[in-house]
């Protein structure tokens, strides 16, 4: 695609994702590690790459350092070259002292300069929060064939979940004739995936005419539907919003099931292996005599002496002899001491657990006291770089915040639902 017959990509990566709790304490949601070697945003970026799109703006706001390090030059997704590039677009001061992005549409409006700097036929707007594979090139083709002003990626979701989404009612040509944002009473099960193809001129006009509009789903899309040609682009494969601890854990576990429909390898998902700081040329995973490993993903640089079952391990995790890791997601360079059991736990990077500890045991129905809406199915969270002493016992739905030193544990028993 030469000249202006091109599509510019804007990737919204500013979301806080606060329901992921300690996992987003030091990083934005798109930068949260996933599936051993990836970050959540890798799925969107790789979809962009595999769709042949080469010019990307990434809109950041919340804790962008980790994300910016991860993007690097963009070379991991082939975004370096004469007509290629990834540009980080943070909020900036303008007429006012600071203009934080007030919503998705506001964020795009504040980067109109960027849109104009790279003349395009369409702008593809998507979020960096989801786990899926999609061919945007095909979507853009459909958008062009239908001569749409806007095309929205949409999929059928369970009726009980529909209140979280923008919803559309379509005619037989997939044209959207009615729109409801996060309806309390479901009239359809067709939900917006937050993926929009806009004709560039149409987008600029709409943003100009509706200067108060800050959100696509709330303001821009309903206006467009009422006046112009807005089409749904139906999607029916694996797609997950991993914005809750439960959904995040489940999507990781889906990687372990053949029939789940998720496959980073078949989807050609790429990551920036150098973003973690340490160079990525770790040696192969090492399994000692006596290791037991079942139904798990194990990344390079891990050392397994103990037992690992139904778990996803990022690079450099050490599971010492006699230790057991079960139904858990363990990020880079965690150390599980001898004789320690880890069950149903998500462990952020560089956590060190002493010997003979029990992490995650007790009553799964006791929700977290402080964040009952975040943790209520039994999963416990251990924050980045925490050091847990020998013999410590941590219950279900517990939260250990980042950087806890072993001395901070007044008691070696953290009951179900407690936060330290």
């Amino acid at each position, binding site marked *: 695609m030469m000249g202006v017959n091109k599509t510019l990509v804007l990737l919204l990566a500013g979301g806080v994702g606060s329901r992921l709790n300690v996992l987003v304490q030091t990083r934005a949601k798109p930068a949260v590690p996933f599936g051993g070697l990836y970050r959540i945003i890798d799925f969107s970026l790789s979809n962009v790459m595999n769709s042949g799109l080469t010019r990307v703006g990434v809109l950041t706001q919340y804790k962008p350092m980790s994300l910016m390090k991860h993007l690097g030059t963009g070379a991991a997704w082939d975004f370096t070259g004469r007509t290629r590039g990834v540009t980080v677009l943070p909020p900036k001061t303008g007429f006012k002292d600071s203009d934080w992005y007030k919503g998705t549409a506001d964020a795009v409006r504040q980067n109109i300069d960027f849109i104009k700097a790279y003349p395009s036929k369409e702008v593809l707007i998507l979020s960096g929060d989801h786990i899926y594979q999609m061919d945007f090139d095909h979507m853009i083709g459909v958008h062009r064939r239908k001569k749409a002003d806007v095309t929205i990626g949409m999929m059928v979701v369970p009726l009980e979940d529909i209140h979280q989404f923008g919803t559309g009612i379509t005619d037989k040509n997939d044209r959207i004739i009615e729109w409801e944002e996060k309806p309390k009473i479901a009239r359809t099960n067709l939900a917006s995936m937050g993926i929009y193809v806009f004709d560039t001129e149409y987008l600029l006009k709409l943003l100009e005419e509706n200067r108060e509009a800050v959100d696509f789903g709330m303001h821009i899309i309903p206006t467009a539907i009422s006046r112009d040609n807005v089409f749904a682009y139906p999607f029916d494969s694996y797609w997950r919003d991993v914005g809750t601890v439960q959904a995040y854990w489940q999507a990781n576990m889906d990687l372990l099931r053949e029939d789940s429909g998720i496959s980073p390898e078949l989807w050609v998902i790429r990551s920036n*292996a150098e973003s973690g700081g340490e160079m990525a040329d770790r*040696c192969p995973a*090492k*399994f000692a005599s006596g290791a037991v490993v079942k139904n*798990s*993903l194990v*990344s*390079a640089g891990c050392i397994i002496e103990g037992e690992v079952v139904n778990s996803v391990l990022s690079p450099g995790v050490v599971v010492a002899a006699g230790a057991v890791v079960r139904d858990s997601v363990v990020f880079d360079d965690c150390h599980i001491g001898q004789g320690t059991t880890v069950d149903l736990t998500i462990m952020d990077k560089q956590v060190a657990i002493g010997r003979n500890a029990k992490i995650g045991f007790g009553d799964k129905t006791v929700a977290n006291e402080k964040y009952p809406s975040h943790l209520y199915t039994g999963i416990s969270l251990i924050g980045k770089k925490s050091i847990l002493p020998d013999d410590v016992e941590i219950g279900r739905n517990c939260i250990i915040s980042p950087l806890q030193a072993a001395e901070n544990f007044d008691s070696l028993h953290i009951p179900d639902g407690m936060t330290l």
Partner: protein
Amino acid sequence: MKLKPKVLAMVLAGGRVDELNVLTYYRPKSAVPFGGFARVIDFPLSNLMQSGLDRVAILSQFRSFSLINHIGSGAAWDMIGRYRGISILPPSTGHSSSSWYRGSADSVYQNIDFIKYHAPEVVIILSGDHVYNMKYQEMIQYHRDKDADLTIACLEVPMEKAHRFGVASIDDEDGRTGGRLTQYREKPSNPNSNWASMTIFCFKPEVLLQVLEANNREDNSFEFGRDILPRLMTEQRKVYGYKFYDYWGYTRTIEEFWQTNMDLLGSDPKIDFKQWGIRTNLEHRGIRDFQPLKIGNHAQVQDSLIYNGCVVDGSVERSILFPGVYVKKGAVVRNSVLFFNNVIGENTVIDKVVSDVNTVFGEQARVGEAGTVSERRATVVGWNNHVPGGAVIGSDCTIYPELSPEKFNHEIHNGEIIR
């Protein structure tokens, strides 16, 4: 100028060894895969990087494609920058001469311009074929302290193996550190010393240039060990031996290659990738892009190294698996080194096998005998073979690359060579 490197490193990477025939069919020995993700040349290159030597030339002429691919930009070893870089120097045609490299010394001689251009204070010439961890800067310091014309690194080998190496007699000038060479003999039939040359040479550039020119003018053979060292000894130059005491893995035969890989395993391995700081080029074969190793419900894994991109649902013991190896349910892989993208079919048993890339073993095949591992030799399988289901192949067999399937119709007995 502080930034400009004072030491120029030249890596001899053109070698191809008959005994490693099958594995060096399509690549020089230095580019042979090693240890589940690396190549042999990663060891000297990482040593150079850790030693702060980052102006490097690689001399290669045999099947260089795999090597050139592996070196890439040199960024993997941080050898890209204003004064840092890796140059691959193949044989070239020119005004005065045009010929293939006639030997290790000739390959350096044909690149004298390159040395003169960089005008280093020390030229370090080393082989790209060995597995070891060495701080070259300590050896270079010794070379400078002695104001030596040449310093060679040596290590003690068992006396009964000394005849396979260049052997030096070293006096007691500096005790454990090293001393002056009193004698040097290349592969002597009756060695009187067991200090073997590791093919690591620190030269004074002017001495190197003189001896290479004399060698080119007067001799018919152009090898460092056979020709250059004896010539310097005869000239009574200041030649020193620098003694090395740690692990040195050499891989001239399949059995040695297998053993050196096995030295990565066990509870106290002789080779420690992490501690040694071994770097490889993750772009080569796209190894950075493989997903994590997937271990299934039927898997058993003991004392093994397995890289990203493998899928293991069978049993793996004392083995090393490169990216993309698939061990299916019921399959058993023991004492083996499997290069990229091997597939081991259901209920197939392979024991003490080195298998090159893209080889597929069907179901219910047997490769390598069972029994005590030290009493039988490794079987080597060349790349892009399809060993059909039910095939039986013994120990110490050599299977050439890309054979047609009917070659496996009969049982292949111990020691057979199939080509």
